[in-house]
């Protein structure tokens, strides 16, 4: 029997073959259907294979070495519980994005720029998760980055997309450099690049600390950890919507896979303070990400910023897992790691769903700017329903899945009084506060997203002409909405399937949840806490139905339609509605002055003047100004100076070489 990993590699080869085929056929009319159909089939097959392996023999490890790559290393691939879980995430996301692409791709103006790279991108993500040596890992990582960069640049003539692509490329190269250095340190002086050898090695404390810092830089820049997040809100929205969904929902998860693989698997024993660092960065990322999202009026950028928030949530859980693992509290560590992985799965569901919804709106209206949308619930009822499901899930409201993973994270935070170090004792509740704040702000943010886009009256003519999207897109979105609900009311199933991962990484697992009656989950003990998604769902469904029944039974026939009172204005335009910016104003006033140096200036004309009153809002991207502008300025200064070196005389060039040689010889002569 062929090992599972070999089957997975055949799948990857098929994806790469599809990419090559797509180059050949991409200008034909049938290409879209062909390519997305192929990726849908391959991703679904990969998903079924890996999921059945995970269900059948969860602790099984299958490895294969191919004679590719560097001759003295070969290419190692390995499938264990962790990579199986992430393969499930990748291929489920890939299959649904392909399904969505079958419909969405028909509106693509430049399919030959998208079709070849889409399967390649999927193949790259699969390979990163399968790789079992540093060389293969970095190669696949870079392949994934480049394929996604090509997709970001698909519409390169649109405003700002080229700059987004450039910043993405710079950040991706920086991240890969950090990963390269991290693996170099892990490989040690002998240069053992297989993960098995790295696992067996015992790196010193200094090396471990440096590797942690480098992984936070490398994987963090790909995942969108503040302050390395700058490329994400530029690049994710620039790609076509199904690719945005993949980048936000899946590629950031591949980055998290890299972080978990190195920090939890290859580095054996974490130091307690590593948890503090990861917790702090996670909390900061969560709050800042959602604050950025609140100020945003471009729907896809809002979603990208919200991805940053969710990455923060995941990193908080990972930091907790590190802290508990370092203090030999395996059950709490397993709880925190399960929360992180559960949120990985959840976020891939609802962020894909929301990006698909944004893509549907883009198809229907041609608008990404929320200030031009509004009232879409009447024109696109099905899309608005699934988008609402996505919004409720991402706002962490029961009975959907987002609530469960954040609840598990809070359960882990509540374990913190048992930690011995005072640093952690103080830090963890503070980060818990940040997490709660970001959850509340996320709810506000998605009330805004849904309310402004779908409710109210249309704000532009394009919305009036909008109509429901095609059935492929709807099928993909409804599948994701159903998954959100299922994971919300049957969390025990997910938690139990995650147990092999926590067993292999931490050596412990959460209690078996499927044995609990009525789909309850009890993370620690019956006396501490329990949650039943089914019960909440049933309660909401029954009470809402009853309320609807009573209203329609007793009140609807008394309903009278009359014009709304317009405060005395004769003609109320749609511009008089709440806008995205005005909705966020209270929050901007509370947090903006501190986090964004936001200022409002009101310019009131004197009585009798005919000029309009003006409200000017000034918002600074503080992180960009503090971290990136000085670097960009320094580089520009240096290149300006070095530019003169291009125009020297031949004799001066010779002199430079000569002086350099003499300097090197001097160093050699004076070296002690």
């Amino acid at each position: 029997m062929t090992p599972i990993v070999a089957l997975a590699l055949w799948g990857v080869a098929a994806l790469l073959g599809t990419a090559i085929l797509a180059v050949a056929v991409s200008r034909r009319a049938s290409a879209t259907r062909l390519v997305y159909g192929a990726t849908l089939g391959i991703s679904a097959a990969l998903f079924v294979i890996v999921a059945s392996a995970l269900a059948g023999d969860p602790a099984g490890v299958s490895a294969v070495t191919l004679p590719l790559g560097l001759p003295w290393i070969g290419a190692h691939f390995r499938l264990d519980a962790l990579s199986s879980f992430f393969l499930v995430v990748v291929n489920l996301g890939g299959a649904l994005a392909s399904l969505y692409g079958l419909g969405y791709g028909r509106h693509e103006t430049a399919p030959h720029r998208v079709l070849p790279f889409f399967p390649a991108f999927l193949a790259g993500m699969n390979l990163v998760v399968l790789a079992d040596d540093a060389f293969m890992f970095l190669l696949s990582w870079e392949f994934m980055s480049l394929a996604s960069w090509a997709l970001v640049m698909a519409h390169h003539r649109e405003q700002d997309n080229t700059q987004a692509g450039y910043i993405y490329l710079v950040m991706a190269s920086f991240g890969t450099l950090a990963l390269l250095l991290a693996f170099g340190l892990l490989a040690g002086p002998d240069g053992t690049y297989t993960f098995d050898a790295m696992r067996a090695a015992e790196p010193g404390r200094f090396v471990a600390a440096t590797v942690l810092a480098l992984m936070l830089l490398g994987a963090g820049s790909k995942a969108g950890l503040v302050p390395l997040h700058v490329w994400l809100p530029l690049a994710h929205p620039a790609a076509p919507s199904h690719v945005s969904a993949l980048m936000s929902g899946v590629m950031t998860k591949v980055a998290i896979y890299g972080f978990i693989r190195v920090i939890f698997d290859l580095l054996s024993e974490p130091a307690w303070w590593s948890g503090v660092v990861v917790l702090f960065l996670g909390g900061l990322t969560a709050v800042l990400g959602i604050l950025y999202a609140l100020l945003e009026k471009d729907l896809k950028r809002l979603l990208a910023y919200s991805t940053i928030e969710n990455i923060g949530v995941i990193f908080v859980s990972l930091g907790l897992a590190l802290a508990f693992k370092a203090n030999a509290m395996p059950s709490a560590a397993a709880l925190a790691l399960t929360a992180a992985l559960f949120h990985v799965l959840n976020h891939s569901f609802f962020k894909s769903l929301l990006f698909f919804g944004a893509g549907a709106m883009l198809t229907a209206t041609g608008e990404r700017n929320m200030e031009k949308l509004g009232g879409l619930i009447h024109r696109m009822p099905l899309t608005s329903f699934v988008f609402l499901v996505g919004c409720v899930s991402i706002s962490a409201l029961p009975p959907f899945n987002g609530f469960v993973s954040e609840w598990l994270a809070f359960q882990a935070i509540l374990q913190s009084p048992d930690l011995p170090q005072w640093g952690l004792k103080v830090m963890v509740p503070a980060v818990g506060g940040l997490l709660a704040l970001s959850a509340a702000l996320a709810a506000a943010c998605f009330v805004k997203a849904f309310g402004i886009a779908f409710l109210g009256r249309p704000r532009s003519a394009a919305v009036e002409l909008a109509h429901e999207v095609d059935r492929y897109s709807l099928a993909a979105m409804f599948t994701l909405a159903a998954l959100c609900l299922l994971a919300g009311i049957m969390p025990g199933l997910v938690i139990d399937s995650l147990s092999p991962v926590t067993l292999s990484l931490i050596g412990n697992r959460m209690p078996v949840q499927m044995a609990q009656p009525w789909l309850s989950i009890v993370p620690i003990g019956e006396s501490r806490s329990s949650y039943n998604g089914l019960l909440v769902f049933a309660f909401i469904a029954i009470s809402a139905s009853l309320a609807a029944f009573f209203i329609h039974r007793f009140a609807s026939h008394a309903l009278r339609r009359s014009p709304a009172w317009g405060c005395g204005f004769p003609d109320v335009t749609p511009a008089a509605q709440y806008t995205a910016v005005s909705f966020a104003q209270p929050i901007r006033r509370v947090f903006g002055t501190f986090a964004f140096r936001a200022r409002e200036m009101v310019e009131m004309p004197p009585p009798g003047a005919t000029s309009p009153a003006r409200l000017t809002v000034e918002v600074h991207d503080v992180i960009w100004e503090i971290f990136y502008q000085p670097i960009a300025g320094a580089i520009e200064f240096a290149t300006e100076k070095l530019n003169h070196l291009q125009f020297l005389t031949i004799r001066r060039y010779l002199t430079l070489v000569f002086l350099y040689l003499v300097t090197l010889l001097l160093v050699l002569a004076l070296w002690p």
Partner: protein
Amino acid sequence: MNGLTFDIAHLLAGGLVLVSFMMLYQDRLFALINVFALHAVVLALSVAWQAYIQDAHHLYVTAAIALVFKAIVIPVGLHRIIQRLGIHRDIETAVGIGPTMLAGIGLVTLSMVLMLRVTPEADPLAREDLAFALSIILLGLLVMVTRRNAVSQVVGFMSLENGLVLAATGAKGMPLVVEISVAFSILIAFIVIGVFLFRIRERFDSVDVGALDDYRGERR
């Protein structure tokens, strides 16, 4: 006997360094080429002596190549070029002679300190040879950077190659193939640069490489 062979090898290699110094202060092209020919003769003697004391007959071939090509063919060729170009009256040093000589002394000191320090356990003959060879290479480079004229830069480059040949013959057991290739590479460089010179001459009416800079529209 051992002392004598060592002394003679030392004398010849030291003579090469001395001739390199002589190159530094020549400000007429003919004189420079004559000194270069002398350089090649001393090199040929030094290589021949090495061949004798190492009992390596193939090194005689190297010495003959050095003598024929570097001491006769190339200087004669360069003489002709200069006469055809009519630049034999040019005085051309970019840096004054005093500072150049001081820099040369500094470079020789540097190479001595460096080589004698990093090769304490090597054969004393090879050690001295390597130290002198490095000095000659550095002095050749110095000639190249202190001259404006393309012809003298070619001469500086070839004296640098002489240093390489000295280093190669000083080490025992260097196969002849390498030396022939070194010699031919110099010959080819000479031909190429000669062609190049005529091209510059045709286009700009001068072999001052500054003309190239003027052509590119830049100041010096």
